[in-house]
Each structure stands twice: as C-alpha cells, then as structure tokens.
C-alpha cells in the first residue's frame, strides 16, 4: 500500500460532503431554504404548543422573543454580537466537515484563541499602538487555534489516532490549560476565581454603532465568511480541499499533496475557531472566565444548518444569535421562563432540520439511483483498506 496513504480511521468518516448532500444549483438552494423555514416553523409551533399546554402565554412569549431578538436597534445589535462567535466556530466546523474531517474540537481551539488574545492584551502587551496590539492578538489567536487543531491532524496521520477522538480529548486539555492560566499568570489581582483582569478600554474592539454592542469583530467575522466562500468555492485550493476530503485516493492519483491539504483543512478550521475566541474577548466580554461558553459545540449545529456553506453558516449563526438574545429578553421579562429554553429550541430545530433534509436527500438519491441502477448502500471503496 502507498506509504503516504492516510491511516485507517474510525471509518466512514470520508465522503462527509456526500453524506450531507452538499450540492449546488438554484433548485437545491430554494428547496433548502423552504425546508429550513418549514423546519423552523414546525419547531416553533411545537415548542409554543408545549408551552401553551403547560400554562404559559405562548403568544406573549413569542412576541417578547421577537422583540428581544430584533425589536430595536440595540436588540438587533446584541443578536449580531451573539451570532459572531457562533459564526466563527460554525465556519470552523463547516470547513472541516465539508472536507470530511470530523473536527469536534472547535471548543478547545476557541478557548485557546481567547486565552492567547487575553494574554497578549493584559499581561504580555508588546509595545505599539492599540490597533497593532489587537491585530497581533487576533493573529496569534488564529495561529494558536490552528496549531491546536493541527496537533489532532498530526496525531491522526502519524499515530493513527482518529480526529474525532483526539479533538474531544484535546478540548478537555485546552479547558484545563485555560483554567490553569487563569488561576496562574493571567489571574486578576483582586479575585481568587479563575478569571483574567479586564482589558484596558483602548484594547476593546471599537463599537461601530453607538450605544449598541455592534463591535468591529462582527463585520470581520462576516468578511471571513465571505473570504472562505470565495476560497473554498472558487479557487483551485478550495477544490483540492474538497477532493482531499471526498476521496483521498483520487486526490493522490491526480497528484495533489494530500497530506499537506489535510493539514491545511485542520489549520484553517482551527484558525476560524481561534479567531472566534479572540473576537469574543476583545469585542464582547473584555475579560475571560474559567467557564467560557459552549460556542464550539454549538458551532457544529450552526454548520449543519448552514449546509456547510460559509454564507449559509452566516445566516444560521445570525438566527441562533437571535434565539439566544431573544431568550434572555424573555427570561428578564418576568415570564418565569429560563433562557435555557433557547437550547431546547435549537435542539428541536436541528433535529427537525435533519429529518427534513434526510428525507429530501433520500428522495433525490432514490431518483438518481433508479436512473443509474446503483446500490447506494455500498460504502466508499477507499474505506476498505488493503
């Protein structure tokens, strides 16, 4: 066997894109949009019906939720700010899943990115104007996230540790690294909790719309999404990443540097997650806690909802951000409904979405397999390792 062949992994991890039914064309786009709207409407109705049955004013909650998510300038900006980290972790998951790499480690990469950016803006500030420091912090966060992800890729290539597994374990290692740093060198002076000092105001990302939470990181995240859409969808490099994931054997046969492309996928994915951490610190929280959210895991769901397409992921992230902001508004408005409701709604929406898309794919593939007379339950040939 070709010595440069990738090691056997937890199998069936290849050809993810085929499994998720990533296809292009206006018809697919409209079908998907209709399906997404349908799934969201169905889930909303389901949740509201359950709420109404348990004695809540369902319509009042819906009304509050919408006002909270997008009722005015301030709330809309808050939704965008909530969407920002989800967008970047969603892109991280999307880039990897699209090429068949199961990177579940966006959480750890996000945390490390946040940690590095906090370190470079509180304790280890290198001399220079504030914008320079912030830029450096974000770049370093990208690299930190990317290297952390790369570690998983290297472990798979040279030691045969499946990426799904190593990224999960590395998430925990990153979590405790972060807590150790926040208890140690980065701890704020006036507390015993694992918590960094607050950033100086000059190192906060500038607010673009006055009196709201709309910081510079939000357009930056969207710019990253657009850039990724161009690179992945319109360049040779992006195509190579896709083929490497879809079918490494074909990629090798046509002379693509498979190993380097697989590393590139992971690095790019980790970069997005790391940048997400930096933007969250510099733009929103302005300090870091030992418990810094579950953005990495939610990113996987965002990526699916956006069909692993950077623009779709942006839309999905904004929607999730609105769900979060709206639910907090509901919680504050004396309706006695905790904001955890948002997670329930998210879960139901993704499950409804999965069922709908699986149903659509099945219809599509049944039509095609009837035409081609192929048996679609045959696993990819390249999985059967010699």
């Amino acid at each position, binding site marked *: 066997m070709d010595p440069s062949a990738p*090691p*056997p*992994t*937890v*199998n*069936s*991890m290849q050809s993810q894109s085929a*499994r*998720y039914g990533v296809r292009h064309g206006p018809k697919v786009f409209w079908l998907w949009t209709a399906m997404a709207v349908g799934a969201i409407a169905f889930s909303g109705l389901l949740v509201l019906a359950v709420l109404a049955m348990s004695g809540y004013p369902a319509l009042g909650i819906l009304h509050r939720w919408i006002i909270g998510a997008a009722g005015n300038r301030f709330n809309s900006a808050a939704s965008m700010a909530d969407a920002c980290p989800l967008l970047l972790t969603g892109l991280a998951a999307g880039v990897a899943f699209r090429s068949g790499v*199961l990177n*579940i480690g966006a959480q750890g990469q996000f945390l490390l990115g946040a940690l590095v950016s906090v370190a470079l803006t509180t304790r280890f500030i290198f001399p220079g104007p504030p914008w320079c420091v912030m830029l450096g912090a974000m770049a370093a966060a990208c690299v930190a996230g990317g290297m952390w992800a790369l570690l998983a890729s290297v*472990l798979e290539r040279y*030691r045969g*540790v*499946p990426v*799904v*597994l*190593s990224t*999960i*374990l*590395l*998430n*925990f*290692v990153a979590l*405790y*690294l972060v*807590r*150790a740093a926040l*208890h*140690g060198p980065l701890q704020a002076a006036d507390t015993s909790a694992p918590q960094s000092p607050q950033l100086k105001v000059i190192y906060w990302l500038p607010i673009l719309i006055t009196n709201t939470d709309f910081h510079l990181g939000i357009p930056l995240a969207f710019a990253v999404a657009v850039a990724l859409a161009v690179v992945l969808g319109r360049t040779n490099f992006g195509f190579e990443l896709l083929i490497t994931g879809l079918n490494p054997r074909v990629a090798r046969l046509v002379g693509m540097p498979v190993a380097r492309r697989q590393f590139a996928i992971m690095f790019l994915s980790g970069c997005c997650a790391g940048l997400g951490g930096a933007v969250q610190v510099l733009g929103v929280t302005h300090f870091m806690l030992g418990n810094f959210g*579950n953005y990495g*895991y*939610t990113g*996987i*769901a965002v990526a*699916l909802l956006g069909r692993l397409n950077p623009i779709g992921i942006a839309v999905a992230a904004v929607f999730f951000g609105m769900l979060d902001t709206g639910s907090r508004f509901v919680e504050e408005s004396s309706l*006695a409904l*905790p904001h*955890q*409701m*948002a*997670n*329930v709604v*998210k*879960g*139901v929406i*993704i*499950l409804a979405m*999965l*069922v709908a*898309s*699986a*149903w659509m794919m*099945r219809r599509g593939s049944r039509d095609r397999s009837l035409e081609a007379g192929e048996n*679609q*339950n045959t*696993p990819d040939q390249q*999985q*059967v*390792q010699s």
Partner: protein
Amino acid sequence: MNIAGESLGTFLARQTVQAATPLIMAGLGELLAEVTGVINIGIEGLMLMGCIAGYAAAGISGSGGVGLGAAIFAGMGTAAIFAGVTVWAAADQIVAGAAVNILAVGASGLAWFFYQNAREAVHRSVSLGRHVGFQSVAIPGLSRIPFFGPMLFDQYMLFYAAIILAVLIWLLLHHTRTGAILRALGDAPEACQAAGVSVRTWRTGAVLFAGACAGAAGAYLSIMRTHAFASDMTGGQGFVVLSLVIFGRWTIPGLIAGCLLFGGINSLQQILQTTRYTSHSTLMHALQHIPFEFFQMLPYVVALLALATLSRSSPGPRYLGQAWRQ
C-alpha cells in the same frame, strides 16, 4: 499513610472503581450501539437527562429506586428521539448527536428550574432527604477481604449491575446467534437485510439500550455517588465514554480496562491534589508548585498518549456512523 481510615492503596482502589462505574455503564450501551453501526455523540446529553430525571424523581417520590427508574426512562426517551432521527429518518449521526447534546443542556436546565420552583411551592427543600439516595452495598463476607473487598465488594449497586451486564453482553456478542446478528449489523447490514433481519428495528433496540445505560449512569452521578445536582454535572464524562469505547477498540475487556485506567488516574490526581499539602515527603512538597488544573488534565493527556503509542488495529465496525436506507 491513611485516608479516611483506609490505607492509601485501598482508598485509591475503591475510588478508582467508583469513578469508573458510570463510564463502564454508559460505555457498555454505547459499545453495543456502535457495534450495530450507530455512533451517538449525544451520550453526554443522555447522561445529563438521567441526572436530572433521577434526582427530581427521587426527590419528589422520596425513593431512590423510583429515581433510578425515571433516569433510565429519561435516557431511553431521549435516545428514542435520536433513534427516530438517525435510524428511521437516516439523518447524519454526528450532527444528530450534537443536537441531542444541545437539547439535553436546555431540557435539563429547564427541568431543574421547574423542579426548584415546584419544591419551593410546597415549602420543601430542594436537596434530597437523608435516606433517599443510594448508599453503597457491602456484600457480606466478601467485602472483608483486604484490598479487594473494598474495591470490588463494597460498591454501589450500579457497579454490580454494570459488571453483570458486561459479562452478559460479552456472552451475547460472542457466543450467541443474536450477537452474530448484532455484529453483522455494523459490518454488513446488507447481509442482514438479505437474511431477513430488520436493520432498523435492531439498531433502534441497541440505541434504546444505550440510552437506558446512559440514563442509569446519569442517576449514579446525581443520586448514588453524590446526592446533588448541578447543571453541568456530567462535566464531559459522556465524551470520555465515547473516546473510551474507541480506545478499547470496541471490545468489552478493552472498554473496562480503559474505564479503570481513566478512573484510576482521575482518582490518583484527586488524591495527589490533597496529599501534597498534608504529606511530609519532599517529592509531594515539590508537587505543590504545580497548579491543580494540570492534575485535572492528566487523565485526558494520558488517554491521548496511550492512543498515540498503542499499535493501531481494528478500524471498528465498517458501517459505523453510516445511515442505512431500506
């Protein structure tokens, strides 16, 4: 050196098994599901549902048994949703598992909120009554054996159940026709279908069983080993289970060895965290300079190192993670 009236070794052995019990329990279910070709990364969520259901049911009914039953039921109920989406609608298992995790975080948070309100409304305490949770069960005679007694025969009821279950599943998988079918479901579902075995029904059964196991493991956390609930109480143990099943290369002895290794290192690091301040040895004193987070990190690092150094073999069930369309 003694801790809580026991020698260090005995204490460590007992703690190791206690820490490994929920991992073994949830791992057995997940292993069976993965053998049939279904990977459920929502195991963390299933355990969390088991935690809150067990705790709330035990608190309301005043009976630990009811709590355990409710936890198993909650785990199976959540797993049924997962099975419906992945096995029957043939949707992607990884994403469905991630969705189950998100759903469970939300649902358990809501349930905890409502439980607190309900207890407050009837002026009762949120914490469990004194005799509601489970206590460890010492097997008469055997538990007197030095070292092995406390380790293996003075444990919680769920440990005994897990061991019996492990033996049963091992026998089932390797010595019965049913086991052959179960393994074939993950390796050659097309052969199963040709032989007239309903792939989807069998896989659903395996996923529901995994849900029951995960629910019971959750109850172990909230009403057996500790009698409390916290919103993030599973703390990633579900993900650990997931990796231990792969770590053990889908074999039951491998899984149990992995769980004991993980539980052992976890217990050891907890003991080290405290003894380094009470002990008189210079080695222990040197450890005081290491932040305790590095001790907490240890089990994960060891797991990674073990994976990286062990020879790779057995890529696992061929159709793992792939939907079956009938």
